[in-house]
């Protein structure tokens, strides 16, 4: 969200300064828009992938805790301490 706002502000400054200077030609605009959109898309995908990764880590951690709890219940105490099923 913040990246999007940042890119909007940057676009505003770009169009104003380049427009006032009279150098707002097709090459500049094309390069600017293409790069901005590609970068925004990359930020979006990267952030979404990180959220998915974090969620799957949470589920795995929960399952690991469940498994270690079950194993510690099944084994006698001395075996548990020997094998370090904490």
């Amino acid at each position, binding site marked *: 969200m913040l990246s999007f706002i940042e890119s909007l502000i940057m676009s505003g400054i770009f169009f104003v300064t380049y427009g006032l200077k009279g150098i707002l030609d097709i090459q500049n605009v094309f390069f600017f828009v293409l790069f901005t959109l590609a970068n925004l898309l990359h930020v*979006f995908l990267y952030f979404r992938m990180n959220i998915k990764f974090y969620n799957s880590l949470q589920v795995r951690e929960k399952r690991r805790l469940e498994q270690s709890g079950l194993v510690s219940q099944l084994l006698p105490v001395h075996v548990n301490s020997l094998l370090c099923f904490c």
Partner: protein
Amino acid sequence: MFQNIKDVLNFKEKLEEEINKANARNSVGTPSSSFIKTMKEDAEEEYADDEDDVTLLKPHKLWLTLPTHARHKASEFESDLLVKKKLFQKLSMFGLFVLYLLQTVFMLVIEEEFENSVVLIVLRIVFLGLLACLGFLYKLLSKKGMRKPISCAIFIYGYLVTLLQAYWTVYPTFHRIQLIELMLLYLVGTHSM
């Protein structure tokens, strides 16, 4: 003796029948598509249960904003992300600092190509100072929760300085170089938040 042999043969036949019946039962028990489907559904239900227990992050589909009710989880996720990105962010900021410094030195050499060269150089030196402060105070700002807005403000200032440079240049094709510099700044700016 014949009677014994006859009994053994009968027993053998009975055994074969039993084995055939058992095989037939096993062949009936092969997993059909419906069976696999129910197994998959069960697994999905189990995963859904996990999701309910762990309270996973469910961001907005378009804006990817995290919900306020999962604020603790969101802050945990952000700190996790920060640890992962720490080295990359420091390296990219250092690279940007070096590039900006080099270009400022280059600008000092070709001072007459800009309309307000003194103002531009001062603005660039201020940006370099802010960038260095951001790099050094990164940890402190992250702890106070001020890292995102402050880095956003610093990078917007950087965009302004870079675009002003393109505005005040006398050299005709210098604005293209400024555009590349702006895009580099934008790349680092969006990925360092």
